[in-house]
């Protein structure tokens, strides 16, 4: 994985020193809270309901075992012994003291981490496929590009005060596992007919109040031109993006109001006027960054697949885990393992210090010390030999991390909600817990199914992209949930449609039951919920949901 060189080390050290001085000035009264807010936000520090929340950047969701151990230490020493993995592949700590934050950032810097730009109106964490570097269907490893973009986006002199936040995602495989189309800017790695690498550039996706999917503005930008093209997009946005209304300031609103074609023209004109050579990305530089991501030395000894098959047959619980929590690896004899952070009844995405340490140990033992954070709020061990899977599963299961529900109905994406977040209008976590409890017994029969829950309109829980989405809102002091149907992430990305009037918090479980019953009745073969929904339309679901009321 990428290792900091002298420049990166010096940079994060300078950043910590700068932030330490900012906190000192705040505590000495030289900075008002209004002046300090943007500074702390540029370092990921929010003031929440009960305390400060620190959002730690996990660039493209990649962690070493050493880093994960450090995160465990930080949660234990400065917080309450657990953290929350987010839909942006980051980690949030919810009980932080302001005075401690410079030390926490220094601890992070010591393991080549930071919290830079995890908030504020600038570039956020660049995300990618949690299976990057391991997936069987990958064209090329997207992580070198994510790292190149991360560095370019760090304290960018021109684009650190944009109209609003800016999220970039990259996918480089046949299947989009990074939900690219819901990002302000998406990059699909492409190979042209000459075999050269470049990117299809999509712009204008985002959820929140106005959910929109990103649209392609250029089918192929050569890799050499990546910086100059990105700068052209950002310059058009910085100039024309709205600043009069917080809710209309994302790039998606600009793209929507101009139309993708006109926006593309503006970018093209800006790009043509740019000195591209000055910021050209040379092949040897890409190669240098890429060398840090070289695949580990996989053990080529053949795996005794028949023995594994016998173990699977003899252990139905392990068989379930194998079916749902492992994915095809590009190296023979290996598998990608997803560790579910959705044990039934727990808070989705939460992870204790002990669990972090356990996973770090397992990564050292079985996965070349590598861990990934998936945007679905789970952890991934990317390179596990297939003959180690049974032992791994047993260890995970013993630690309460053996849930076999990846992609199933209890693998719910959920934001922290009103239990933590000052923006939230509803307590999303208990709803997720009740739903998972209620549905988990039947989840194998229900099949692949994504429920996504947000505790407010900002949609951190991606409810618009849930097969069934739930948005918690406050209606005259009562928590109610708006239901959206037919959303989908990835290649077939779709924004869910609102089913009808919101239901009360305690009616959510019953409502989901009715919707699932209709789906189970109407689906054809292996059809997933959004496909059934697209085929049959909203009517039968709506009828089931509201007829008896």
């Amino acid at each position, binding site marked *: 994985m990428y290792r900091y060189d002298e420049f990166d080390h010096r940079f994060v050290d300078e950043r910590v020193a700068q932030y330490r001085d900012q906190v000192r000035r705040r505590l000495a009264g030289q900075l008002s809270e209004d002046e300090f807010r943007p500074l702390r936000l540029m370092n990921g520090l929010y003031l929440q309901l009960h305390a400060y929340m620190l959002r730690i950047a996990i660039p493209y969701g990649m962690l070493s075992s050493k880093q994960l151990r450090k995160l465990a230490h930080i949660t234990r020493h400065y917080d309450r012994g657990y953290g929350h993995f987010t839909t942006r592949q980051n980690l949030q700590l919810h009980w932080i003291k302001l005075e401690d934050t410079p030390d926490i950032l220094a601890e992070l810097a010591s393991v080549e981490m930071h919290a830079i730009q995890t908030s504020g109106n600038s570039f956020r964490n660049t995300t990618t496929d949690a299976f990057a570097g391991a997936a069987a269907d990958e064209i090329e490893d997207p992580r070198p590009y994510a790292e190149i973009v991360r560095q370019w986006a760090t*304290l960018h002199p*021109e*684009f650190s005060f944009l109209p609003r936040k800016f999220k970039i995602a990259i996918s480089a495989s046949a299947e989009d596992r990074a939900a690219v189309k819901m990002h302000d800017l998406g990059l699909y790695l492409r190979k042209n007919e000459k075999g050269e690498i470049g990117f299809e550039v999509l712009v204008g996706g985002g959820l929140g109040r106005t959910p929109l999917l990103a649209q392609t503005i250029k089918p192929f930008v050569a890799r050499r031109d990546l910086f100059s093209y990105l700068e052209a997009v950002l310059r058009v946005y*910085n100039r024309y993006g709205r*600043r009069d209304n917080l809710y209309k300031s994302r790039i998606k609103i600009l793209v929507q109001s101009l139309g993708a074609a006109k926006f593309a023209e503006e970018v093209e004109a800006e790009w043509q006027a740019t000195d591209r050579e000055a910021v050209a990305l040379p092949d040897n530089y890409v190669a240098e960054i890429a060398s840090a991501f070289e695949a580990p030395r996989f053990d080529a000894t053949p795996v005794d697949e028949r023995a594994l098959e016998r173990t699977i047959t003899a252990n139905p619980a392990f068989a379930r885990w194998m079916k749902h929590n492992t994915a095809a690896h590009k190296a023979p004899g290996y598998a990608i393992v997803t560790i579910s952070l959705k044990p039934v009844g727990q808070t989705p995405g939460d992870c204790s210090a002990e669990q972090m340490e356990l996973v770090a140990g397992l990564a050292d033992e079985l996965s070349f010390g590598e861990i990934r954070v998936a945007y679905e709020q789970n952890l991934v061990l990317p390179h596990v030999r297939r003959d180690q899977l049974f032992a791994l599963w047993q260890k995970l299961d013993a630690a309460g991390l053996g849930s076999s529900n990846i992609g199933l109905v209890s693998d719910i994406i959920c934001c922290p909600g009103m239990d933590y977040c000052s923006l939230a209008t509803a307590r999303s976590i208990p709803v997720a817990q009740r739903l998972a409890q209620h549905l988990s017994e039947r989840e194998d029969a229900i099949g692949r199914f994504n429920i996504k829950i947000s505790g407010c309109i900002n949609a951190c829980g991606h409810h618009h992209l849930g097969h069934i989405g739930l948005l918690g809102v406050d209606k005259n002091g009562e928590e109610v949930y708006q239901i959206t149907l037919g959303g989908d992430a990835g290649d077939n990305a779709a924004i869910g449609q609102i089913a009808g009037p919101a239901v009360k918090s305690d009616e959510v479980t019953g409502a989901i039951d009715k919707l699932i019953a209709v789906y189970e009745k109407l689906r054809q073969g292996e059809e997933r919920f959004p496909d059934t929904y697209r085929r049959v339309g909203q009517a039968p679901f709506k009828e089931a949901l509201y007829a008896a009321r």
Partner: protein
Amino acid sequence: MLLVEDGRLSVDDWRHLGDDEPIPANGAITVSFARWQTDEAVLHLRTDKLGLRLPNTIAPQEIAEDVSRFSLIILNFPKFTDGRAYSQARLLRTRFGYKGELRADGNVLRDQLMFMRRCGFNSFVVGERAIKEDWAKAFGEFDVFYQLAPDHRPWVMRQRLSKHR
């Protein structure tokens, strides 16, 4: 008061002409973009220094042909969160070759100075606090930069590439 890029404090000796005021025959003046558009011919006749106040809604392309006529261009930050002038500054310096003084006015705060200087600003309108709190230090907080910018500071990609040569 002005803070200059080398950390020196200075006074503003320009006269910033209102749009209704008559154009004086002598002395360094700045005019608004609107005034420049209406009175360009008259302003050309003067020999003393001329400056321009460019709102952040006007693209630098609009003055592309004229940049060499100005000794000072003042760009505005209505709020420090409004970052349009960073793009204006960068384009003026790189695409349009502006070499004169580039001044940041408006809601100029200590912790934005570094970004401003990187984009090519070399003077900053600041208040009394700048002395008391030693804002000049803000220029020296970083010496590692990940982007090419008009300040021509070495940037990491080039540094890495030249290291291996």
